[in-house]
């Protein structure tokens, strides 16, 4: 494991050119997550319809790892049920804190596996996910 495994092509790509990186005006869940250790911020917007994540986006100020993680997260979550999303998050957390290889269901998220060798950066990779969870917990905004 070295620095090139952490900063893989896919991470740099999503980290410097993130997908779904905008405000979602018709979101019915949103939350702003903050990492006080580094000052990174991410705002996650989710549109949930009939228990399905019809759309999800984010805006942020953060490093390549946290930006790439948020970007890949939005790609993966779109169209998933809430339960499926929770399941992916659990697998992703496990991936970052264990020695096991990534399961196929994680898709592009597996590219973040390098983070596990950089303990101070694990929070960067999970910030968007924790924020997504918090967004779901926030009461639906009918305004």
């Amino acid at each position: 494991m070295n620095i090139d495994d952490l900063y893989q092509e896919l991470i740099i790509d999503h980290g410097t050119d993130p997908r779904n990186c905008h405000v979602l005006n018709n979101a019915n869940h949103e939350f702003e997550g903050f990492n006080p250790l580094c000052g990174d911020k991410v705002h996650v917007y989710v549109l949930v319809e009939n228990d399905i994540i019809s759309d999800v986006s984010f805006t942020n100020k953060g490093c390549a790892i946290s930006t790439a993680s948020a970007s890949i997260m939005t790609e993966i979550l779109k169209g998933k049920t809430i339960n499926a999303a929770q399941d992916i998050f659990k697998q992703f957390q496990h991936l970052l804190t264990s020695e096991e290889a990534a399961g196929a269901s994680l898709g592009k998220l597996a590219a973040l596996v390098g983070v596990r060798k950089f303990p101070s950066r694990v929070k960067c990779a999970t910030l968007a996910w924790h924020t997504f969870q918090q967004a779901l917990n926030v009461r639906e905004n009918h305004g």
Partner: protein
Amino acid sequence: MDTNSYIAKIRSNFPALNTKVNNHPLIYLDNAATSQKPQQVIDAISKYYATINSNIHRGVHFLSETATEIYEQTRQKIQNTINAKFSQECIFVRGTTEAINLVASSFGQKFVQQRDEILISVMEHHSNIVPWKLLCERTGAKLTIIPITETGELDLTGLDALLKPNTKIVAISHVSNSLGTINPIKQIIQQAHAKNIPVLIDGAQALPHLKVDVQDLDCDFYVGSAHKCYAPMGAGLLYGKRAWLEKMPPYQGGGNMILQVTFDKITYNELPYKFEAGTPSVADVIGWGAAIDYLQQLDYAIIAQHEHDLYAYAMQKLSAIDGIKFYGKAKNKIGIISFTLENIHPHDIGTIANEYGVAIRTGHHCNMPLMDFFGIPGTARASLAMYNVNSDIDQLCWVLNKTQQIFHRHQK
């Protein structure tokens, strides 16, 4: 001996500089966070615990008397270092943070009331913001702020208007921990004193690099930490003019800070003990004394010139890097270099630098209001010490170029 050999000799006194990081030699450029310690300091701490460990003051046995003597000798060494008039004006605390909290709490309790003002600046470290903010919340006083310029210098054009009849204290850093700016504190002190307002100087970043003379400055309080001055963590200094310290109530209660205790009445101890409740970090204070001895036998002129030249070399080399932007361009500054690389977050720079053994600090450096001023989440910061050499800078530049390669390869 030429400067290079002289610095090489100094380097050999710092064992931590031999550490390997990811199979690369450590390049330690995080000295503003804490400096490394010379073997002489490590030995002094070890010797204290191995031979004279005991609690100081009031002991009648050999160990306690010896430890007390060396502890109090350190107070005199510090008095000499900062040219305090009386050794009782030098209070041992855990560090800069505790010293500022002590003053905010004790001075605040006695002298600060609702509608009073406390004047600080945009570039203060959180430790010179939060204790005052807490005091304001307790008393209903207000925090007022000296602005800064784009070059990272205090904007003192409006200072006179900010020094109001209800301004009770000015608290300002001697040197900025993010920008390296050396502030014109003597001028600020004079202007404040013209209106009878006392001034606290946060000297955390100045003590390791500048000669400090508290009588010449005429500051009312001067605070700093041992661990940034090649000395141990866990010891720090509160210098206060005796007249102020005598008027101020104790900060913490406990052993050593009293003369007499009954359940009806307590008589406080004299200075400096009034502010030194409980068992201090004796070993760390003694280690600080050893650091002062160590620094004293060095040639200050050579070191000052070396630090100056090293900073100039660093700026020349770093300026050549594509997309680098510096924060803190004061004319009068020390070797603290804050920068960003275009489109690359400081944390990514720090992680990649670490991979190649280069220790820099990244983030907000406990200066969130300052980062807000510049509209950035943080910077990468390389901070120099006397034992750094040109090749450290070369390795930093190499790793910054490497960072750019990693980030830009997919844009080929």
